[in-house]
């Protein structure tokens, strides 16, 4: 009987039993539910029941089917239908409503993978965080108490205000990880909260080593990818540092359909990956020698004149003149006093074969700024009647006297000649014949692409590899054409996120590279010293400090690191150099707050945990580059327990900060962000956050983003929720087809419309004459051997896993049952035999940084001299509570050139130019371990 929870019904008046005042009557008292009036009324007919099968006879029906997806950073954005009955999500299935992507390319849908299809179970699993939690034992003891949101946020707000009003908000970090970045409204909410409060946001793009700095050095852009249909359009696709058969399950079909359509799909990887299994060819390069292989192929392309002269003459810096005395570009400031006074450092020169004279390169100079949109708008790469020489040496009169000049192309030939295939065969383990054959296949196919993953950024010298890859592509005229180019992910230009973060308050966001944040606050110089010696540690530190001193990169180290929020990331899982980071940074924090839907090692070590709604319990938007659809996350069921979405969690934090600031009578404080003075009135945090109450929920945030982001169809969130997916405006089978699409297409425009690139030279810039690049002999790319730890012979590689997206779903029991059920490490049979290890043995993997234990997975797919671990395993899943990052000691390897500045496009630019936290330049060893080593888990 709905609404009548205490209906007392006497059995019979004559048989009432009274015991110590207790009436022995049937008293219906329901706390959790209600019963239909018809069934609760006394004497109402009961449903006939005789056996349990009776309850199974009624056809199972759904109360509702919602549209949703999984807001995680696999970049899949797969459209799912989510089936709900009685307030529970019971199952999901892939939704096949994608339209045709084009007449001559495969379709995008249906999309999905086994992780997504497990989520209806996973969201109710034991790992789920359902209530605000307060630590009641020591950090990491596993002893918790449930507390109310009010108690938790008050305590957090008090600590926040203590620090923000004394040391400044700079010492409080708000780490946002990959789970956050892809959910547009959640990301915007976090950005607004950070913008208002002044906390520091260590961005994870460089922080996890995903930033393609070499691409940025060359093209002035990092977002160069197209949709997956581009793979099908390619005639030769090098799948390099990537394993899409495992990591891009919804999209892998594009590769295999391309192969059956005649495209040469060539996998390049040290280990025999599932992608290699399906490709036409597999080139098994030695770990860390990929740049040697790329430069050897560049040498073949140059030697055999397989390059595209008109393309490189117009689009690249290959014909630009370089002084042989200083190794600098010849600039106007070198030629005369006017140029010197005007500091015309962005005027470059060509040798014109038509006139036999030096001429200024079109599209250089004149613009107000050395790089940027003005030059793209008003200038052109069009050579007109100029016929630039690619080869030759000339004498030029300068302010320093007569100097000899040559072209970048000439210097490149010399550089490439140091990488002859025969010489590089010994370095790479790939025969000269295979190198030549692969180079020819690549150079004679058009369009040709290099589909690469973020592993290309995770070596210290990954920038050199990317520059070498781009050389292969550019020399053959394949950058900026459909089916070609370097295929890192693109990223939509969601202007609504930044707009929402700053609306009504202006921009005051502290964003810094996670790499430099860790370097400053975890004493990573000391880690470098212990792992790589004094010389490297001191040299790198000297350049680091010089970059800060020169103001090329911001410095947020002054106030220390005293409090941290972690949202959408499991930051203590994946740090390179975890022991050092934990000891010197994380463990010293005065307060750690984690906002998460699931437990992981970061939450395990927190002081407060705030429960966050999972994928089917929240409203949001997702937009990625690989498929041109905006995808909704609709609220299929209310957030479980006391979890809330990220917007609401930050609102509650903002409310607590306001409330406590008022109660404490705090007045506004002054803050300074990157030289700008900012007034922080913490009593008004909630008003600012909600725009004085106008923004009431995350759906309003989503609508703000829809309304203000070009290229996103202008629909209501409700309509989007009803439809699930909507194709973005101006998208065809390419993300590059229209300038009003929401995707980056600057590189394509430069090729098609001859607009100068946003580099210092205005060209695809392969020669970088910054003094640091010249000093390190990296003005042009070259192979440089990766670092190693002496006495430890094995390189450990890692990659994204088939059965998880980072650490999400890593602990799902069914998915574990499809693997080894516990963390494993792949080892070569010879290496295993040499150490007396058999398949399935517990092994200890160790080096000077630390050790961890895992099951040996003996596999002939591994080269001798390497081991391999899929990533994402949480430390709590290992025997001793430490995962692979115990031996990854590379966090402090901040390559000096990646902090160069005062050079056109080079200098700190958030999410574009910053040093990566790298993960590869180390070695280790393994040995058979006592099978009883360690406890199975670290929880109390």
């Amino acid at each position: 009987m709905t609404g009548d929870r205490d209906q007392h019904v006497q059995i019979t008046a004559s048989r009432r039993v009274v015991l110590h005042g207790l009436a022995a009557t049937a008293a219906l008292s329901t706390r959790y539910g209600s019963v239909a009036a018809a069934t609760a009324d006394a004497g109402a007919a009961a449903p006939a029941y005789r056996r349990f099968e009776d309850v199974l006879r009624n056809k199972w029906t759904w109360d509702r089917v919602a549209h949703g997806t999984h807001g995680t950073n696999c970049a899949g954005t797969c459209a799912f239908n989510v089936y709900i009955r009685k307030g529970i999500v019971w199952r999901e299935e892939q939704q096949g409503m994608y339209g045709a992507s084009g007449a001559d390319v495969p379709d995008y849908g249906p999309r999905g993978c086994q992780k997504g299809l497990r989520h209806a179970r996973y969201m109710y699993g034991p790992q789920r965080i359902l209530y605000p939690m307060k630590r009641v034992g020591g950090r990491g003891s596993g002893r918790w108490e449930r507390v109310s949101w009010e108690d938790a946020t008050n305590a957090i707000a008090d600590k926040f205000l203590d620090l923000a009003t004394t040391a400044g908000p700079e010492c409080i970090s708000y780490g946002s990880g990959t789970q956050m970045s892809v959910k547009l409204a959640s990301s915007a909410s976090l950005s607004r909260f950070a913008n208002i409060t002044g906390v520091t946001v260590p961005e994870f793009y460089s922080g996890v080593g995903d930033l393609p700095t070499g691409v940025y050095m060359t093209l002035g852009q990092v977002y160069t990818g197209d949709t997956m249909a581009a793979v099908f359009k390619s005639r030769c696709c090098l799948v390099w540092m990537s394993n899409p058969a495992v990591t891009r399950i919804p999209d892998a079909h594009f590769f295999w359909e391309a192969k059956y359509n005649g495209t040469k799909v060539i996998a390049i990887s040290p280990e025999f990956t599932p992608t290699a299994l399906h490709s036409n060819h597999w080139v098994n390069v030695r770990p860390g020698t990929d740049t040697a292989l790329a430069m050897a192929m560049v040498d073949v392309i140059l030697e055999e004149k397989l390059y595209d002269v008109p393309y490189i003459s117009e689009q690249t810096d290959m014909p630009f003149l370089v002084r042989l005395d200083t190794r600098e570009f010849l600039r106007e400031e070198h030629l005369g006093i006017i140029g010197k006074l005007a500091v015309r450092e962005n005027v470059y020169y060509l040798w014109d074969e038509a006139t036999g004279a030096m001429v200024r390169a079109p599209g250089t100079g004149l613009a107000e700024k050395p790089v940027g949109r003005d030059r793209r708008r008003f200038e052109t790469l069009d050579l007109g009647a100029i016929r630039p020489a690619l080869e030759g040496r000339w004498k030029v009169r300068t302010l320093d006297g007569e100097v000899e000049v040559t072209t970048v192309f000439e210097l490149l030939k010399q550089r490439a000649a140091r990488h002859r295939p025969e010489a590089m065969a010994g370095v790479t383990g790939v025969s000269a014949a295979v190198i030549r054959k692969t180079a020819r296949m690549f150079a004679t196919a058009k369009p040709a692409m290099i589909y690469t993953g973020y592993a290309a950024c995770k070596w210290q010298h990954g920038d050199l590899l990317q520059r070498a890859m781009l050389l292969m592509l550019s020399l053959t005229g394949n950058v900026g054409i459909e089916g070609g180019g370097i295929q890192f992910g693109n990223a939509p230009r969601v202007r609504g996120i930044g707009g929402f973060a700053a609306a009504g308050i202006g921009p005051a966001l502290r964003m810094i590279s996670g790499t430099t944040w860790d370097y400053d606050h975890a004493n990573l110089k000391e880690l470098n010293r212990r792992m790589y010696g004094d010389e490297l540690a001191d040299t790198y530190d000297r350049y680091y400090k010089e970059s800060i001193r020169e103001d090329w990169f911001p410095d947020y180290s002054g106030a220390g690191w005293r409090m941290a929020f972690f949202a959408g990331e499991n930051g203590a899982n994946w740090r390179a150099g975890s022991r050092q980071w934990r000891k010197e940074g994380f463990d010293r924090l005065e307060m750690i707050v984690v906002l998460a839907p699931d437990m992981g090692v970061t939450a395990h070590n927190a002081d407060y945990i705030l429960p966050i709604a999972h994928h089917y319990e929240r409203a949001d938007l997702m937009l990625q580059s690989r498929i041109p659809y905006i995808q909704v996350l609709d609220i299929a069921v209310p957030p479980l327990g006391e979890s809330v979405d990220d917007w609401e969690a930050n609102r509650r934090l903002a409310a607590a900060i306001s409330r406590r600031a008022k109660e404490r009578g705090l007045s506004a404080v002054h803050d300074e962000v990157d030289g700008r003075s900012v007034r922080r009135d913490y009593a008004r945090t909630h008003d600012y956050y909600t725009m004085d109450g106008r923004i009431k929920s995350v759906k309003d945030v989503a609508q703000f983003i829809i309304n203000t982001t070009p290229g996103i169809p202008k629909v209501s969130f409700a309509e989007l929720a009803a439809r699930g997916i909507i194709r973005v405006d101006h998208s065809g089978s390419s993300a590059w087809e229209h300038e009003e699409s929401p995707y980056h297409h600057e590189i394509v425009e430069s090729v098609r419309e001859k607009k100068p690139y946003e580099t210092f030279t205005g060209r695809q810039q392969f020669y970088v004459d910054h003094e640091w690049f010249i000093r390190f002999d990296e003005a042009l790319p070259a192979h440089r051997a990766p670092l190693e730890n002496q006495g430890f012979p094995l390189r450990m590689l890692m990659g994204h896993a088939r059965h998880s997206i980072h650490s999400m779903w890593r602990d799902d029991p069914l998915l574990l049952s499809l693997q080894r059920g516990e963390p494993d490490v792949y080892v070569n049979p010879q290496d295993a035999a040499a150490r007396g290890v058999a398949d399935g043995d517990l092994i200890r993997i160790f080096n000077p940084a630390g050790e961890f234990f895992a099951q040996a997975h003996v596999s002939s797919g591994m080269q001798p001299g390497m081991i391999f671990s899929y990533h994402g395993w949480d430390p709590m899943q290992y025997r001793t509570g430490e995962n692979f990052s115990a031996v990854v000691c590379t966090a402090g390897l901040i390559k000096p050139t990646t902090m160069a500045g005062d050079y056109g496009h080079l200098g700190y630019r958030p999410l574009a130019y910053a040093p990566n936290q790298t993960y590869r330049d180390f070695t280790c060893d393994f040995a058979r371990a006592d099978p009883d080593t360690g406890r199975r888990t670290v929880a109390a």
Partner: protein
Amino acid sequence: MTGRSVTGRQVAETAALRCLCYAACSELLASPHEVDPRPALRERIGLGEAVPHARALDPLLAEVSGAELARLRAEYSGLFEVGSQGPPAPIREDLQTGQRAGTREEVVRFYDYFGYTLDDKFAWQPDHLSVELEFMHYLCYREAQAADEADALSFQLAQADFSGRHLASWVPQLAANVDQIAAGSLYARVVAAVQEFIATDHDWQLGTIVDAGAASGATPVRPESSPRVSGRTGVAPEAAPADGGDEP
């Protein structure tokens, strides 16, 4: 076809008293973060004097209703609600039994069949022990107010089946789990007492169900679908179905 019937019960009295017992059990194991259980429990002290197999509940009704709310919350949440690798002793059947396929579906089907609908706030955890106990409370209530014997029979058989297939099947595992983690603690004793009541009451129910089709006359039978339980010993049922084994 084998028919089942219930004999030998004084329905009016037993159903009402058992109804109160299940309410008390449900309240004892409700989250004190959701509602303060103490006033309701105070009203139920003395129940054990009327229901012999609920005797163990009485001292706990007194102890819980007299305890500090903060203590109840801390101990309850630390055992049943929060933990670094999930709650140390999950209080949901689905989690205690390894998210076995079909478990929650059958629970929800039982609720559906008998018109018991959870509020939105609690809908996601139909398998919470306190909710399942409340459902038993509701079935007893309906038995007590049944219009006739046939009507009562439906609720009696449903109680036996629901208890056998669910509560009596998994709560011993929970009790053992809690005893291992926090032996002697208040909630370890509460779970043990509730488990004892469930097991004894289930046995009592089975003792009054007869198979009308048996050739030798009315013989108490165990419902075919009920897994064997050894509830009194507080150990997990030896014949617990494997994953998916009882998929409806």
